[in-house]
């Protein structure tokens, strides 16, 4: 921890954290306080920042409703979801967070795969029509009979 502080660092401290020593970083607080006892300029700078602090202190903060705690506990009644529930929720989200493409993809992927496989097995390149094979077999039989 440093025991001395330059005026320029003190200025930085004030412009960032204000004039209240409680807001200053703890490791620098002692050195800043020491500078305040030694420098009139430092005290003048602090007084200026304290004016802004006084204004900021006027910012209203309302307390949360007395039933907020109960509402949170009520809303968190379900146990945290397990990993498979999260996976299912990712694939099939509820209506509020519905990215439509996920369930659509769930159906479209197997459909596309089936179509692709079907097309692959159905289209055999250079396959001879069935009647040609039959005609060739008949021709062979005819030759054998006639011999």
């Amino acid at each position, binding site marked *: 921890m440093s025991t001395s502080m330059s005026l320029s660092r003190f200025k930085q401290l004030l412009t960032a954290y204000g004039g209240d020593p409680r807001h200053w970083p703890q490791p620098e607080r002692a050195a800043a306080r020491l500078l305040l006892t030694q420098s009139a300029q430092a005290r003048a700078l602090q007084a200026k920042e304290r004016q*802004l602090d006084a*204004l900021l202190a006027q910012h*209203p*903060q309302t307390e*949360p409703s007395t039933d907020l705690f109960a509402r949170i506990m009520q809303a968190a009644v379900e*146990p*945290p*979801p397990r990993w498979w529930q999260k996976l299912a929720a990712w694939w099939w989200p509820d209506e509020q967070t519905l990215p439509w493409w996920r369930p659509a993809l769930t159906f479209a992927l197997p459909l596309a795969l089936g179509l692709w496989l079907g097309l692959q097995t159905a289209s055999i390149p250079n396959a001879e029509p069935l009647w040609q094979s039959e005609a060739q077999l008949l021709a062979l039989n005819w030759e054998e009979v006639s011999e």
Partner: protein
Amino acid sequence: MQAKPADSVSDETLLNRIQEGERAAFSTLVARYLRDLHGFAQRHLGDPGEAEDVVQETFIRVWQHAERWQPGAAKPSTWLYQITRNLCIDRLRRRRPQAALDEQQADETHSQAALMQREQVGVAVQQAIQNLPESQRSALLLCHYQGLRNQDAAAVLGLSVSALESLLARARRGLRKQLQGQAEHLLGEVD
């Protein structure tokens, strides 16, 4: 062995227990952070009702996604403020057109110098804070109002401490500029 009072249990322990679905630990965490997170959200959004919604959503996320918090990666308080801040930012994005209207109305009110005459300094300060860019506003709220240490506030914002100090200085400069008129009435010359 005697059970530890709930208040003496560390945040880390509470989150570990929440990860295992322990409601009592969740209840303790909510009680511990409810007021702080509400204060942050209320000042961030300028609307106590909306702040309550944000705080409720924050805790629901903690309950349902507690496993996302990794010990050692971030302090539990940092994680909670990060969630709250992100939810506030989402809200602000959604209501941007209305916010622009509000700003316009506020400017008109400022020009009439009516706020001070009606001793509504608090409202003027709130409006001035609302007018700050989000990152400056968050930095100011975390350090000045929530009393976070500078390292913790920097962690919430994902910044270095020197970057945080720069944001804070700009925030205070912006506030001083906006509140100069009011300050003359209340406290004499500010700048």
